[in-house]
């Protein structure tokens, strides 16, 4: 007999049928967030092991500084900084995951970034380890971090002119059509034929027919 699990059939509040690793201990953190960061944090959501808040772009550096330096919060470790693209008409999101030894849950901080003008302040002044994260987010999504001392491409060539992880960058159905099929290398800009890249946003400003 197999172990049959039906999705989402746990208690309605937490939505999981798992041994709780943080039963109700997220409470103090939720209370602290509502006290100290009430003006910055909004849309608080909690899971059994993650507490999530949304912070606007102009308050993110101060909020993260409070979260890091305040003794009750104590989120000293930046675990992850990720970028999400919600589609062409929507927005980008920069998501930070923080760890504290004073609270048993992860803290997820989501920052909404405008898709037409994707600029957001850098947090390398708080954690220098965010440098590579931000370079990767710039390379893959095109989000510009103002104040970052080294915002250049990290994975793709410095002359690459597209942002691969955006939702309007489509992977080709047939690999033979892709720019990576070996026809034209991306390292030599004078040989590029970018007409096959379907990245509308990156080439939006170019004159018609010319790449």
């Amino acid at each position: 007999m197999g172990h049959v699990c039906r999705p989402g059939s746990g208690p309605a509040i937490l939505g999981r049928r798992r041994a709780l690793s943080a039963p109700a201990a997220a409470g103090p953190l939720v209370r602290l967030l509502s006290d100290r960061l009430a003006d910055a944090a909004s849309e608080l959501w909690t899971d059994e092991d993650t507490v999530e808040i949304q912070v606007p772009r102009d308050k993110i550096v101060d909020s993260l500084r409070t979260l890091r330096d305040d003794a009750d919060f104590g989120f000293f470790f930046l675990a992850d900084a990720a970028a999400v693209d919600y589609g062409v008409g929507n927005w980008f999101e920069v998501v930070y995951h923080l760890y504290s030894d004073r609270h048993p849950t992860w803290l997820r901080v989501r920052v909404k970034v405008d898709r037409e003008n994707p600029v957001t302040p850098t947090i390398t002044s708080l954690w220098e380890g965010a440098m590579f994260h931000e370079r990767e987010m710039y390379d893959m999504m095109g989000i510009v971090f103002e104040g970052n001392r080294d915002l250049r491409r990290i994975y793709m060539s410095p002359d690459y002119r597209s942002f691969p992880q955006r939702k309007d960058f489509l992977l080709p159905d047939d690999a033979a059509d892709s720019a990576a099929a070996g026809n034209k290398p991306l390292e030599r800009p004078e040989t590029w034929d970018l007409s096959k890249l379907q990245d509308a946003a990156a080439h939006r400003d170019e004159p018609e027919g010319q790449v």
Partner: protein
Amino acid sequence: MTTTKSRPAPEPPADPEEPRIPDPIALDALATAAPRQEYFGFDIVPPPDRPPQTEREVEVYTLGDGEMLVNMGPQHPSTHGVMRLVVKVRGEVVIDIDPVLGYLHRGIEKLCEEATYTTVLTYVDPMDYMSAMHNEHAPAIAFEKLYGITAPRRAEYIRALVVELNRVFSHGLMMGFLALDIGGLTPILYGFINRDEVVEMLAAISGQRMLFNFFRVGGVNFDTNDEFMNRLGRWRANVLDNVEMNEKILTENEIFRARTRGMGTLTAKQAIDLGVSGPNLRASGVPFDVRKAHPYCIYNELEFDVITHPEGDTYARYMQRIAELKQSIHLIDQIVDKMPHGPVQAQVPGIIRPRPGRAYAAIESPRGLYSVYAISDGGPNPYRFRMRDPSFISLQVMPKLMPGHLIADTMAIMASLDPIMGGVDK
């Protein structure tokens, strides 16, 4: 291309002191007459120089007095894979360093957005290819959180077992690579003997030596079998002695100690600031282990301590990994003792469609905190699949640690950080 036309030869300058104006047609012929179709060796017309564009680039690429840029290119004798280090040196002493990554960027995150959840677990194997089980463990946990299920207990125990086995041979190989980069050719052979034994064991249970494809959403693919248990028993009988023998070559070796002690010291504050995690962080004195901090799988049922070393130099990172290797062997003992009976895979459909939501799962890989942030939109493919690789973040440590040392020490320091380029470049 250029047809030979009759044209007057360029006249010599009337005044020998006058600068000779180069003939534009001759220059053009030089650029286009080279048979670039037939010989791709070195560019006859070099690519245009790109001026440094960011502050940090200007810092690294401006040369002072007596300094020069040495390119430790993507292919180099150190075995970490394709990474390029542009090193600014004055003589033999490193002044600054700029790692250039991306030579192994395969676009795995983008590919995973077009794959079903089970296929994603096969795509992520070649990221941190030395610890492929860990690569699969994190997404498996994240997808189970999204889908709202737990794996059966026997599956969790088997997961922990293979994950710790993976950690054992990964740390053993780090020891070998560290010695190889410093110049000793023997320990790498011992490391690979150990790896071969373990990897044949894992091939017996999962069918593959390296990119295992063993985890599924809801459990693991196969149960343990006779061959696996035989090999496990035989390996376990000898492994502690073998490890002792292997690490004694290095730990008590004068040359090794002279080259690694006091080298590349990373303070705790620096390490946390730079986002370093795993053995590198614990070797600097910070007791942060994800298995204890946010227990996942069955780690809260196993007894182990968080090992730390206070010094933070290369030797401490090496000792830390040896100690964790032995700790993993003790964990394997406990797991094998406590393993329950039961099914090894929850019954989930082949293509799962979790409810829209977000999940974050972090595990402790041999290189540090390895985490997955997955967003589901209700469809068969993940909407966003983000992996945070620890080697990627550990590489930021290099411009802080390497200046002041000699070029030969750059490899020792890098080997002690144990990066794997597959994970760095995704």
